[in-house]
């Protein structure tokens, strides 16, 4: 799948933003000015991510229509979930900043909505049967783990951040390991795609140039590059931030850990798209391979 920068920015930033909001709702929030900066950062990431996703659209001016189909569409549900979360956490933030009041019930509701929003975002990808690498319960688990890890580091909860960093590292590796063979396991090959029997190869492409399908779904990442990027990703997303925190619960350690971790999530999300293969590639003669 084409790793579109707007979608990578959206999922990484809004994920971290909603993850932070969840922990702020669960008791990490201060009051007054410190709370202002906390919520400013969380809302900037969450809303910034959502705004960047709009650049992905062909006709963003009709965006409000996307709220209508929540009964069937995960993308529509995401619209509702993110607006509901921002409203509830907005009220919570106003109370904390201006009235020095932490409203625990509102915070718990907001935290649940934050996690739900990340879950709904992940389901946009996890629902795609056409992309076997994504079509797994591991996808929502991975998205939520990324969000909560970022939230825990930003909230400077030392033990939770450390546990989540290690857990996320293990989860990331298991996502890759189980995702690598899923395309072939589902039985998708050129024979099932075309219904023809025997050894098939593409004799002639339907078009001499490129097209939307190849631009969107034809992305292939070189396997040796993917292997290198996976090592870089694991170091950044989990190992290095964890080592950073082992030096102690110092604000600088948390700051550096967050910077490294977020960079790692960017690499991870790029791989999430770049390594994902869409079944339509089979019609273009690209057989199932492990990576």
């Amino acid at each position, binding site marked *: 799948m084409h790793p579109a920068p707007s979608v990578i920015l959206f999922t990484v930033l809004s994920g971290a933003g909603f993850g932070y909001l969840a922990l702020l709702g669960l008791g990490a929030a201060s009051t007054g000015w410190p709370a202002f900066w906390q919520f400013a950062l969380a809302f900037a990431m969450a809303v910034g991510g959502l705004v960047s996703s709009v650049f992905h*659209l*062909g006709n963003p001016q009709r965006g409000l229509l*996307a709220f209508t189909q929540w009964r069937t569409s995960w993308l529509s549900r995401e619209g509702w979930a993110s607006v509901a979360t921002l409203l509830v956490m907005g009220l919570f933030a106003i109370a904390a900043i201006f009235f020095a009041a932490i409203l625990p019930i509102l915070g718990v509701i907001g935290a649940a909505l934050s996690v739900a929003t990340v879950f709904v975002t992940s389901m*946009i990808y996890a629902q795609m049967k056409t992309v076997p690498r994504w079509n797994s319960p591991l996808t929502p688990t991975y998205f939520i783990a990324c969000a909560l890890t970022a939230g825990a580091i930003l909230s400077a909860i030392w033990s939770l951040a450390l546990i989540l960093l290690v857990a996320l590292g293990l989860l990331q590796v298991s996502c890759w390991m189980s995702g690598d063979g899923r395309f072939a396991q589902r039985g998708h090959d050129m024979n099932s795609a075309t*219904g023809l029997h025997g050894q*098939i190869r593409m004799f002639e492409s339907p078009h001499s140039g490129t097209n939307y399908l190849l631009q*969107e779904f034809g992305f292939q990442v070189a396997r040796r590059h993917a292997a290198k990027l996976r090592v870089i990703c694991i170091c950044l997303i989990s190992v290095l931030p964890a080592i950073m925190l082992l030096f102690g619960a110092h604000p600088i350690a948390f700051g550096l850990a967050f910077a490294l971790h977020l960079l790692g999530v960017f690499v991870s999300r790029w791989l999430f798209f770049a390594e994902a293969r869409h*079944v339509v590639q089979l019609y273009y003669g690209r057989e199932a391979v492990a990576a």
Partner: protein
Amino acid sequence: MTALPERTERKLGLVIDLDTCVGCHACVISCKGWNTENYGAPLSDMDAYGADPVGTFLNRVHSYEIEPEGGGCAQTVHFPKSCLHCEDAPCVTVCPTGASYKRAEDGIVLVNEDACIGCGLCAWACPYGAREMDRAEGVMKKCTLCVDRIYNENLEEVDRVPACVRTCPAGARHFGDLGDPDSTVSQLVAERGGFDLMPEQGTKPVNKYLPPRPKDRLTGAAATAPALPTKRRDATGFLAWLDRTLEKI
């Protein structure tokens, strides 16, 4: 509404005969022509006369080479591919705006372009690559089964079929109601063993494909006779001299 209808009164669709298709791409061109001039936004091309032309098409013809299992003559199969108007269309339910829908009366899957935000999710959900985003309009384009032809009483009756079917010079494309077991297309599917593409995706396509018939095989003495030995004849006269002279150079 992007909920799929429980059932559709009819299941209009195509039956494509892979045995007959000659790969001339006439269906591709007539589709592009009709759908550029009629329903919805025209099918645009980018850089049409430049170095890297790219455009929107609703129908594409792939060509494959097949070596049959257990030996035999290799075959070239031309493989036209367009929207299969699936009963369980995954492209419809993912649509956040309600732009994509499946008609309860005839099962045609359409896009209301005025409601399409161009998010591209329906194209992701389609296993067949049947949907292409139009780069000029930013809306999703797909086969309409020529909904503006098949019910169009301003056209001659013979023309009230999809443009691709009307134009196919080989008679490889058939249009009809696949929900009616007595229709010509349903009988053709039953007779020839029509099949679904990528059935493991669970989309229940309405369009069916007819398999290519196996190629004739050489039988009897013709199949077992050894290949003729190639006779080597040494040149004589002028040609022999030319041969020798050229060798020396």
